[in-house]
């Protein structure tokens, strides 16, 4: 289990990470969200042992992360961290040897993963000759080939088509099943909603949301009602106290409301119209993200 306890990191006057705490259990996928410059990279670097926090500590299975323990961690960086002049085999051998694997195991595992990603013919090709998507697959293989206890994924789906996204997703789920703790970061909120049971939202180094995805969504007061039907009095809807916005998207009305209670008042207005759909849904993570980050900046 990864335990991050009250870590703070300053660069001069700038506080990059401010008293951040969270835990990632075995076999759990944890989302780390934040706008650019929110402190995600610094947090990853502290977890990887690349930076010492000014205060607080990070432990993996109760032990401080050092160069022996870092071989149990896999890291997919946001920007591709591959030496493009090397061949796929040389690159994987390089990183996997640093993780403590022997040559025979590396060969076997690499063959398995190349076959899994349907690119066995690229084993002896130079990285620079591969497409962006295939480079991303190699980067992913380099991070998981040693079967890490902790996997950090920073934008792992960059440059991938839906088929390859699915292949990587399945591989991540398989690692989760084996008990790997996973930290996932992406600006594409649908991936976070898809993957993460728990998440943290960082703004200016501080956690402004922390908890399970379900709790966060439920606790966020604003909801959306999707209504499909004919003869709906839109003007009347707009007059209801607590209705923030009404917009028509194709043949549906999207009504944004301030709290869940407003939904019953809206229903009273539309119940006599010829409606075929009335759905009260939680705000999307994307909406929560924009609203929360916006609040802090205001």
């Amino acid at each position: 289990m990864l335990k991050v306890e009250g870590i703070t990191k300053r660069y001069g006057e700038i506080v990059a990470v401010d008293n951040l705490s969270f835990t990632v259990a075995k076999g759990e996928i944890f989302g780390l969200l934040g706008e650019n410059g929110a402190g995600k990279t610094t947090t990853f670097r502290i977890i990887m042992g690349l930076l010492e926090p000014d205060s607080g500590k990070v432990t993996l299975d109760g032990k401080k992360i050092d160069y022996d323990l870092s071989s149990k961690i896999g890291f997919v960086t946001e920007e591709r961290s591959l030496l493009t002049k090397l061949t796929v085999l040389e690159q994987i051998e390089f990183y996997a040897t640093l993780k403590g694997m022997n040559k025979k195991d590396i060969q076997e595992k690499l063959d398995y993963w190349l076959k899994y990603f349907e690119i066995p013919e690229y084993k002896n090709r130079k990285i620079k000759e591969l497409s962006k998507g295939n480079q991303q697959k190699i980067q992913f293989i380099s991070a998981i080939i040693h079967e890490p206890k902790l996997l950090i994924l920073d934008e792992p789906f960059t440059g991938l088509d839906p088929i390859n996204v699915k292949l990587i997703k399945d591989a991540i789920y398989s690692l989760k099943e084996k008990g790997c703790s996973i930290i996932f970061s992406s600006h594409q909120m649908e991936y976070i909603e898809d993957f993460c049971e728990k998440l943290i939202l960082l703004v200016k180094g501080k956690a402004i949301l922390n908890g399970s995805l379900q709790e966060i969504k439920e606790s966020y007061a604003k909801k959306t009602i999707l209504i499909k039907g004919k003869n709906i009095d839109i003007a009347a809807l707009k007059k209801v106290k607590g209705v923030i916005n009404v917009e028509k998207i194709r043949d549906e009305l999207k009504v944004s409301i301030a709290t869940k209670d407003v939904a019953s008042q809206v229903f009273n207005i539309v119940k006599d119209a010829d409606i075929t759909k009335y759905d009260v849904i939680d705000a999307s993570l994307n909406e929560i993200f924009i609203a929360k980050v916006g609040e802090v900046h205001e």
Partner: protein
Amino acid sequence: MNKKFWYLTKLSFNKKVKSKWFIITNIILLVAIVILFNISAIIEFFGGDFDAKTNIIVVDNANAYEIFASNLTNFADNEDYSISKSNEDIETLKNNLASAELLIVLNSSPTEYLTSELISLDKVDNLTYQIILQALNSTKSTIGMIASDIDPEVLANISASITVERTIINDSATTDENMDMIMSSVFPTLILPFFMLIIFLVQMVGGEVCEEKTTRSMEIIISNVSPKVHLLSKVLASNIFVILQSILLILYCVIAYVVSIALGGASLSSTFDFASIFSVFGQMGNTIFLVIPVTIILIILSFLSYAIVAGILASMTVNIEDFNQLQTPIMLLSIAGYYLAVMAAMFDGSIFIRIISYIPFLSVFISPTLFVLGQITIFDMLLSVLILILFIFILLKFGLKVYKSGILNYFSDKVWSRLFKAFRTKN
């Protein structure tokens, strides 16, 4: 951790040795050295003669041929000139004159005793002209003295070379006048490969660190090994590489020497004055057994310090242009060291050059040079080694801090500003 250090070192070394550029460069070097050692044989092969003697034909209208020939032999190397007397008329000789021939006409003069005419197909090189002039002046003096009816015994004494008894008070001086010639002609050639290896070393270490940083693979590497292990593995691999390259250069010289022997052997001496170099080493006596190891230690330590500085500077860069900017001072330092070494004889024991010989980066060029010139002692060389060891220690102590901070720094502020910030950073 040791295992990872040796793995990184091996990987970095193999990357250099197995590159096609290493193989191509070494083929070019081997060919160039063999050509240099056998240049006269090659010129001969294409119809020229690098060792051809200059043939001096004398038309003697002053009955002075014997004196002139004797004087010329005294002033010039017999291997470079041949002299003969001709009775043919001047016009015929002029018409048949070859490019390696000179026609000298000696005429008697009632007032000047001797006048002469020098006829050549092309311009005469300065050295040959000076030798002929000296021989002619001496011949004129001898004729003048004979005309003045000076006693032959007195004349012989006047003409004889002066006896000079030499005493050198400073017994550490290991030089003679040959040294200036060696320093100005052979020495730059000998230290040039070393200078080039330093440039090679700086670019290798810097380029590799810069590449790992710009591709962001540094984050993965540094999460598995400490920055100290990473830097030292690069430094060690590069140093082993340049030492291997030095050994290969020596091997190429041996091959070139063997080839030159196979081709007749004479061509080698015209390219390098080995006899003079060996005579200098001979003068050093037993000191040579101390000087050579100290020089080798100085070279290895200097390679290390250049490589460490290159690595530290490269850690501050975010692209190769930045690195080129940062490596300029190191390049200038090594160029300064090279030229100071070449011109060391001109400083003739000045305090300035002596102090410079202790300064790291420069000491490797200047210290051995000054020792060969007899301007410093072996203790000065040992002092340079000690200063260099101390410098490397300080470099590692403070430089590793900069390296650790620099390799993960991608800020786009000015590169020198990043360097100074890194000095102040705690972590």
